[in-house]
């Protein structure tokens, strides 16, 4: 990333939505920014961390999102500005704190950014985190472009400070990862000195007594609605008496604008672009919907605005209640998956009674049929040289030898793919951060009732610190019986190699205090073993022995992420196939290496009639030479010379 303080005010640059959000926070004079890595949100804190020393504030990767928000709230209590950014899942992790924070209120501007992920491009779900605004009566802001990301981030801090309440800003994976021209403003000359007056009754940040404070929470939301209306966050463009109004938020504002052009309906259709969506902007809705014939809602994931506007319109009665509403509820737009300009155009055209096609039907049919016939699916997989492939190989082999149908509960990270073919489908359940250990903890209690299958939990190093630790404490306390395998690749790899407590590096790349996996587990009184997953035989033996012995045990499989290793100068070997040893179809192994191991660097060359190394893809980790029954895969290089 880069130091965003170096941008020149007034000079447009190409910024990613996430970078624009970060620059907005810098211009707002943020004093503490905290996050846990999670795509599509990760670049916000990365950019802030890279700017922290120049701008003189604190940026950190926190152990999890709840701690991140609590830290940001703390500086708000002390009168300065705090930011916590996360992906949609993170909002769930924070939920208990949010609901209480909303009652206690806060002082310095406090903003929570959630980056939701329609279609689950880099997520295990496509949750719409806007629910939190309604649940906790928090103002909700939804920018549509990178330029708005910057402007509305600054506004969110001001609004929060004006009402003494947390403000939620919602981005989307598409917006967070869109680059467009953004013109930076000025950075603040200074920041107020943080101070928390313990004698000031207005600075007692607690929820009691609940009912009067709950009333204040409601009043703050009302006040926010007035301020947001005055700020003109929501805009209408189109005819005074349109046949239809599209009500849109986020990226859908741009899709809707484009859709109106695609179906050539600018004279008939208006666009109400909402950037302040909660509380519902009743004034502009009443003004713009009263003259409309119908309404089409364009928003990502849940019909949040749609449902609320319909409830509100029913309450208003009259012409508003009689409006014809189109959106996700009536099937005009799909209930799941990301929206596109074409989907909005088709829904608009249908609502106007004149169907629209993106291209002639014949072309579409031919193109689809060709893809169907010719193009094999491109399944996601571990990178060449990934230690996780080796780890899951060892788990699969060891549990097969054990023969008792071992169960593996997985967790969140690259190794979530353990339940896909690349991980030999050896993972049997995956849910959220840390839940692999919790599931194993329960399953490990069933032995006395006849459950004789070994239980293994697999968790990444970063995820272990995030939410695995309480589950492991629970397992130790209640004497659950399972093998915890920590896949320690020394990075939060999935989200872009961010450091975590075990690495000892902070977000800005400075030395922090490393929290060592072994010591944490040993402090719980657990036996801890460490193995190198690249050494398949030793790893398989360690897993086999542990499940045979039973009891709660920890095995750390330690090997740096292959992509990180690539940046550090790469792997030691040059792999090749010995043509004298690889006998192809006559071997009897039935193409064991490519068929079963499935590293993208290794394929079966039909023409040559034997296995081959794809030199463009292979990184030279040397693991595959251990799996060939004929010993035909050779590793040439210094490592071998030493061996």
């Amino acid at each position: 990333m880069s130091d965003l303080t170096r941008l020149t005010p007034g000079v447009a640059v190409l910024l990613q939505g996430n970078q624009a959000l970060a620059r907005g926070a810098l211009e707002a004079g943020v004093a503490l920014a905290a996050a846990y890595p999670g795509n599509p949100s990760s670049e916000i804190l990365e950019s802030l961390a890279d700017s922290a020393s120049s701008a003189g504030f604190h940026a950190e990767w926190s152990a999890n999102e709840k701690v991140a928000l609590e830290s940001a709230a703390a500086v708000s209590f002390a009168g300065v500005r705090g930011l916590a950014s996360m992906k949609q899942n993170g909002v769930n992790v924070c939920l208990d704190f949010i609901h209480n924070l909303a009652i206690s209120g806060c002082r310095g501007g406090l903003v929570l950014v959630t980056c939701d992920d329609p279609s689950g491009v880099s997520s295990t779900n496509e949750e719409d985190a806007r629910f939190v605004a309604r649940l906790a009566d928090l103002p909700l802001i939804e920018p549509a472009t990178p330029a708005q990301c910057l402007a509305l981030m600054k506004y969110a801090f001001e609004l929060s400070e004006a009402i003494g309440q947390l403000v939620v800003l919602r981005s989307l994976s598409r917006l967070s990862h869109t680059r467009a021209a953004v013109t930076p403003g000025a950075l603040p000359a200074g920041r107020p000195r943080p101070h928390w007056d313990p004698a000031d009754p207005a600075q007692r940040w607690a929820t009691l007594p609940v009912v009067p404070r709950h009333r204040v929470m409601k009043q703050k939301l009302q006040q926010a609605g007035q301020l947001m209306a005055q700020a003109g966050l929501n805009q209408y463009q189109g005819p005074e008496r349109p046949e239809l109004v599209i009500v849109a938020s986020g990226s859908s504002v741009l899709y809707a604008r484009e859709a109106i052009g695609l179906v050539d309906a600018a004279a008939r259709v208006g666009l109400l672009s909402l950037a302040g969506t909660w509380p519902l902007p009743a004034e502009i809705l009443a003004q713009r919907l009263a003259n409309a014939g119908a309404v089409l809602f364009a928003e990502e994931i849940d019909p949040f605005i749609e449902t609320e506007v319909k409830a509100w319109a029913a309450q208003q009665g009259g012409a508003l209640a009689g409006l014809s509403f189109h959106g996700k509820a009536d099937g005009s737009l799909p209930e799941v998956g990301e929206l596109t300009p074409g989907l909005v155009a088709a829904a608009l055209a249908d609502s106007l009674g004149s169907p629209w096609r993106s291209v002639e039907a014949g072309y579409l049919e031919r193109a689809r049929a060709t893809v169907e016939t010719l193009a094999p699916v491109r399944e996601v997989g571990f990178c060449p040289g990934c230690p996780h492939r080796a780890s899951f190989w060892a788990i699969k082999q060891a549990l097969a030898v054990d023969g008792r149908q071992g169960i593996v509960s997985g967790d969140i990270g690259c190794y979530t793919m353990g339940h896909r073919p690349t991980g030999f489908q050896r993972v049997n359940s995956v849910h959220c951060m840390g839940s692999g250990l919790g599931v194993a903890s329960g399953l490990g209690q069933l032995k006395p009732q006849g459950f004789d299958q070994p239980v293994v939990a697999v968790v990444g190093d970063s995820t272990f610190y995030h939410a695995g630790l309480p589950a492991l404490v629970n397992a130790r306390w209640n004497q659950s019986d399972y093998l915890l395998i920590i896949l320690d690749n020394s990075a939060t790899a999935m989200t872009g190699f961010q450091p975590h407590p075990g690495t000892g590096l902070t977000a800005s790349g400075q030395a922090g205090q490393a929290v060592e996996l072994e010591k944490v587990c040993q402090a719980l009184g657990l036996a801890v073993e460490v193995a190198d997953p690249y050494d398949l035989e030793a790893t398989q033996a360690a897993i086999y022995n542990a499940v045979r012995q039973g009891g709660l045990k920890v095995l750390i499989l330690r090997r740096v992420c292959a992509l990180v290793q690539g940046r550090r100068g790469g792997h030691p070997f040059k792999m090749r196939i010995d043509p004298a040893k690889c006998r192809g179809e006559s071997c009897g192994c039935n193409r064991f290496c490519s068929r079963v191991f499935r590293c993208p660097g290794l394929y079966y060359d039909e023409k040559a009639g034997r296995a081959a190394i794809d030199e463009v893809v292979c990184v030279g980790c040397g693991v595959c030479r251990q799996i060939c029954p004929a010993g035909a895969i050779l590793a040439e290089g210094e490592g071998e010379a030493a061996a």
Partner: protein
Amino acid sequence: MKALTSDPLGIVITGVGGQGNVLMSQVLGRAFLAAGYSVTVGETYGLSQRGGAVLSQVRVTASGVLGPLIPENRADAIVSLEPLEALRVLPVYGHPGVTVITNDRPLLPLGVLSGQERYPAPEELKSSLAGLCGRLYWLPATAVASQLGNPILANLVMLGALLATGLVPLTPEQIDAALGDLFPAPKLALNHAALRQGLALAREG
């Protein structure tokens, strides 16, 4: 600022995670911005980085703000770092007049490695692509990049080829300048060379 061949101009850049697709879209985006156009670059990555298909979109207009997505079947050019991925995006972004520029070097999906699925023969893939677009450039970008010393340079070779199509009103020098913002000086010469080799390759083809 030269007039765009179509406004908005939409370029899809596709390929497999790790091929330098996102970088390509960034370079193109910066070059367009520096040349005075309004540009929006949409990137898809995340889980797709791990061996899956990765797609970026570069949208350009003389003025105004464009959304991150090219409307369905409205791309002007599809640049693909892997031939199968060029085909895969055609139902979504293609139309009879689209220009397709693809690297000819396959990267085998897992299902093909394991023998459960088949990767189409090059000629079959090439003729199918030709039948679904207006112009096809089928180029040995990885081979050219490997000769230059690193297969990762295939992305710059492909960017050079895109310039050769005439769809993009940018000069190699404007791309060089954008690269200068993103790469340390010692790496620039090789990138510049790859760009020019791609340009020559597509002009010959």
